[in-house]
């Protein structure tokens, strides 16, 4: 590999808390997951009306990507084709699949149907942040840091990406969980992008 890949920033959403680079930035234990996502949207003064139309998985991932990238100026540093996004989850789009199946009994909802694929989350984030690089979504029982880091490092090694948003975004049964980090080269004071460090951050809260 020509250059060392590092973790330049990360964000973790779990148990109604949001942690950015080790600092807790928002918490509300009294709310349901869906209300928590809305409260975080309001708290961080995000203005993106499409958010209200998203399913819970997309809201979870969108919110985390929004907070991770808001100060990164990715579009000033990279071409859209140089920015990748790779994430995985355990429950795919099951939360919305179940709701869509229920809607079939009366009138199938087109707006639910469009969210019956987990990789729609990638589309939502790519539209918002003008990302056109390598994109992939995987489904695993649990977060697999070894797979995730190997896959990402191969993208850097083959020069498919110059920076990549990576992590985990899951929503099912009223439980939201997301962990996104930004992997880049040339960040000397950041953690090295390997499975040990990624797992350590993932287990953070």
């Amino acid at each position, binding site marked *: 590999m020509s250059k060392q890949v590092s973790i330049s920033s990360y964000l973790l959403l779990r148990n109604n808390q949001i942690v950015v680079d080790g600092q807790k930035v928002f918490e509300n234990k009294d709310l349901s997951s869906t209300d928590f996502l809305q409260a975080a949207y309001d708290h961080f003064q995000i203005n993106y009306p499409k958010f209200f139309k998203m399913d819970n998985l997309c809201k979870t991932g969108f919110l985390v990507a929004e907070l991770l990238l808001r100060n990164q100026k990715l579009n000033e540093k990279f071409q859209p084709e140089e920015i990748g996004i790779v994430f995985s989850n355990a429950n795919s789009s099951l939360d919305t699949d179940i709701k869509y199946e229920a809607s079939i009994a009366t009138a199938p909802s*087109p707006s639910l149907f*469009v969210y019956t694929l987990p990789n729609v989350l990638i589309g939502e984030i790519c539209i918002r942040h003008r990302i056109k690089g390598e994109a992939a979504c995987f489904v695993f029982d649990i977060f697999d840091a070894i797979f995730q880091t190997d896959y990402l490092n191969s993208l850097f090694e083959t020069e498919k990406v110059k920076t990549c948003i990576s992590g985990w975004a899951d929503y099912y049964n009223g439980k939201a969980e997301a962990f996104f980090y930004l992997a880049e080269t040339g960040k000397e004071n950041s953690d090295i992008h390997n499975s040990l460090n990624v797992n350590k951050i993932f287990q953070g809260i």
Partner: protein
Amino acid sequence: MSELIATLKVQIIEQLNLQHLKPEDIGDDQPLFVEGLGLDSIDALELIVLLQQRYGIKLANPQDGPTVFKTVRTIADYITAHKK
């Protein structure tokens, strides 16, 4: 007609998940798509579902969609003309 228009605004917000809007934010003659409220093709499908579910009206010719769904008032006109 004004009562139907007011009801439609509430139903559109609910059906299309436009929680950032209040009924009074939607003008009776404001374009719903593109330069107006910014609705998209999926929203158009949801409006078709709304007509079927709430008013028992099926859009006979999909080509009529852009005309029928131009504004809240044109939807109200269509409902008034086609409600059984």
